[in-house]
């Protein structure tokens, strides 16, 4: 009788200190990379080359912007916090994984037409971001980075699945 799930090699838990160094470290630690399907170049991405640096920078920029949006929506409509704050927490955690700092607080309260419009904007932009994380995973040269980005997209998909309709009534 076999255990349902054979053990699989996992990427190391090492936090990324720089994109290139961490990717190189993860490649060494996990023994896997994106090249196995034939369409990428071989393994052994060096820290100097860092071919995924621009990709990570784009992901960090988008997540930072979204973290700012969710903070602004919560500041403007505190009653939306239960629905919106989980996205902010998610972005903060993902930015930490990518060794980037999340915004500390809302820089402003935004300019929304109302709570429903604000929540709709969060939903639309989170959906777009989730798809972009999938695209980023597909574009990553490093298999380890691709895995992390795919897991980020899965975390976003879970929160989108849980996103409830906007609450009725006026907001503070």
């Amino acid at each position: 009788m076999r255990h349902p799930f054979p053990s699989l090699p996992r990427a190391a838990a090492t936090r990324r200190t720089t994109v290139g160094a961490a990717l190189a470290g993860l490649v060494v630690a996990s023994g896997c990379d994106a090249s196995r399907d034939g369409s990428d170049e071989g393994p052994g991405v060096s820290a100097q080359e860092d071919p995924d640096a621009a990709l990570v920078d784009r992901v960090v920029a988008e997540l930072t912007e979204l973290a700012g949006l969710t903070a602004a929506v919560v500041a403007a409509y505190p009653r939306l916090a239960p629905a919106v704050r989980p996205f902010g927490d998610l972005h903060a955690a993902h930015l930490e994984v990518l060794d980037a700092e999340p915004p500390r607080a809302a820089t402003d309260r935004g300019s929304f037409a109302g709570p429903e419009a604000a929540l709709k904007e969060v939903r639309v932009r989170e959906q777009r971001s989730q798809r972009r994380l999938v695209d980023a995973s597909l574009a990553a040269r490093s298999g380890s980075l691709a895995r992390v980005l795919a897991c980020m997209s899965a975390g976003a998909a879970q929160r989108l699945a849980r996103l409830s309709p906007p609450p009725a009534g006026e907001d503070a």
Partner: protein
Amino acid sequence: MTTLEAVQTTLAAEHAAVYVYGALGAQTSRSAEPALYAAISSAYTEHRARRDVLTRTVADLGADPVASAASYELPARLDSPERVTRAARELEEGCAATYASLVANTSGARRRWAVTALNDAAVRVLAFRGTPEMLPGADEYADR
């Protein structure tokens, strides 16, 4: 790990998932627990389809697909809807981790398929009373 090894490992996991979901379905009353039964039936159908895709993928890679084991180790007690639900949730969490590893070892269309499967497994965890995680499928970040 090569792409072939990763696909074979994922296929082995899907063989197990199909087996376990069959057992979970057998332990679930369609009339008493219609929502749970529907969720398990849906998951069973999806995992069978993924198993079949993986079988074809291995053949496309020029190898013999790994066979299903005669039986698999099941959770010790499946005598309540709660335990069945938990077993299904843990099964999907295991699938998410498996597909995350497949993502790391593929590229192009195969990676896209693996990312889709990972996302599906992560969302299906919620149907079995799971809670959202920061990085489903990446156990090393589970404490975040």
